[in-house]
């Protein structure tokens, strides 16, 4: 039988892990998407709206 | 060969892949049982191992029909048949990848469901161990069914019907090994050893039979 404190620590630990995992997923996912977008734009593919944006046109 | 393993893993994880569906099905099936038999915790803990095993058996049959059919539909199977590497190895690796993508998650999810079934910690551990040893056998048996049904337009249900009777020994020894742990007098090791033997047996027989079936299906 675990002591009561152990249950408390376990649940806080799992909560921390889950939340950190969620945050990590969101951050990493965002980075991956930005990288893909940058790669696509580097290869010269642009959305119509972005192509018209000021500063983009030479 | 590792390339094939990782390709199949990738395919099952990518959009439309079946890796998550199996676990979800497993959880849903097990969660439905208490509604059927009532929330009597003693009863649930007694039938828990059997429920988990049946749920895992059904869940691991779920994606099996696509194992070779997807390869046939886009023509990859033709190329696999032509290679110098024996078809046997190709089938074995595909089974291994299929198990890693659908069987392994079931094993990992089983302790959680064991808690829901009010099973004791020892029973949960034993169920997990037997599932770990037993589910590969289901995949190997299923590969035979999938290979036989590969050219049929509606092979999905047929695969389940063909495979379930063959998988019964796995179920019997898997469940009896778990009960041997819970109920003291029965010895634990013999059923576990038989289960391991069944898995090893089908790991050899399954790919051989599946490869033979695939060769004939291509005619």
């Amino acid at each position, binding site marked *: 039988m*675990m002591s*009561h404190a152990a249950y*408390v620590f376990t*649940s806080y630990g799992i909560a921390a892990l889950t939340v950190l995992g969620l945050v990590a997923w969101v951050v990493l996912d965002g980075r991956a998407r930005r990288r893909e*977008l940058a790669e696509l734009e580097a290869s010269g593919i642009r959305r119509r709206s972005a192509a018209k944006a000021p500063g983009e046109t030479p | 060969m590792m390339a094939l393993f990782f390709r199949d893993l990738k395919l099952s994880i990518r959009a*439309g892949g079946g890796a998550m569906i199996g676990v*979800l099905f497993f959880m849903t099936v097990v969660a439905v049982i208490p509604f059927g038999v009532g929330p009597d915790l003693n009863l649930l803990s007694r039938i828990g191992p059997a429920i988990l095993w049946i749920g895992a058996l059904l869940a691991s049959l779920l994606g099996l029909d696509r194992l070779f059919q997807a390869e046939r539909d886009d023509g990859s199977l033709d190329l696999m048949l032509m290679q110098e590497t024996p078809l046997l190895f190709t089938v074995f690796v595909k089974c291994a990848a299929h198990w890693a993508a659908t069987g392994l998650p079931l094993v990992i999810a089983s302790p959680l469901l064991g*808690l829901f079934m*009010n099973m004791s910690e020892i029973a949960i551990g034993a169920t997990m161990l037997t599932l770990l040893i037993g589910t590969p056998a289901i995949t190997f048996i299923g590969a035979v069914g999938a290979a036989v049904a590969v050219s049929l337009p509606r092979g999905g249900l047929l695969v389940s019907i063909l495979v379930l009777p063959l998988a019964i020994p796995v179920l019997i020894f898997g469940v009896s090994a778990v009960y041997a742990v819970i109920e003291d007098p029965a010895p634990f090791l013999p059923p576990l050893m038989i289960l391991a033997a069944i898995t090893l047996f089908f790991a050899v027989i399954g790919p051989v039979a599946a490869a033979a079936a695939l060769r004939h299906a291509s005619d």
Partner: protein
Amino acid sequence: MSENSLAIRKFSDLANPTRFLALADRLLPWLAGLTALFFVVGLWLSITTEGDYQQGETVRIMYVHVPAAWLSMMCYSVMALAALGTLVWRHPLADVSSRAAAPIGACFTFLALVTGSLWGKPMWGTWWVWDARLTSVFVLFLMYLGLMALNRAIDDPARSSKVSAILVLVGFVNIPIIKFSVEWWNTLHQPASVMRLDGPTIDPEFLWPLIVMAIAFTLLFFTLHVAAMRNEILRRRVTALRRLAARAAGRGARTQ
């Protein structure tokens, strides 16, 4: 912050994904900072307050369990609202919002189930009972996972948005069942003690950390939700650009 205010903001000035992205970029650091602040205060409060004479130290699990459970329901409500937005107003961001919320909701529901289980073991002597509250939350968890699976199975958002919106709305019947299950059926789970018409019955000693933690978790949800929505918009942009690239490559080859 409530779902209502978020919805109004979305409909008034966030209709355009590009503007949403710009706003999200400006908003996110503040939201994240505020979340961290509330978590620091909330955690400090929940560690330093006294234990309950009846439940002992385990009462501290409540500070995680109750906010997680509350969020699991709120997240689904946000998704239901977004589903309504998809079906009735055909709002382009509604489907993005609903899709982005599903994994977050699944995580909070998982957290509620696990912490509840860890609380139940020392209090009730068992990890799990099949009573109305627990079962309906578990069903909610399965629904989140099912929605995620559905969203993944149909890779074209234009087709999947309507289907998953309908499923979300159908599943919404579960939310009142969860909320009132403790009152409609006599169960092991204790009834609500904070959100009551006649005022909270809980000791202020526990109420403060609980409220702070609830605010912290709610802020965390909105931070993650906005960030996940941004990711989803970027993902769709990547998809659109890739299709564009495929078409452009064909034209390019012919002119060479």
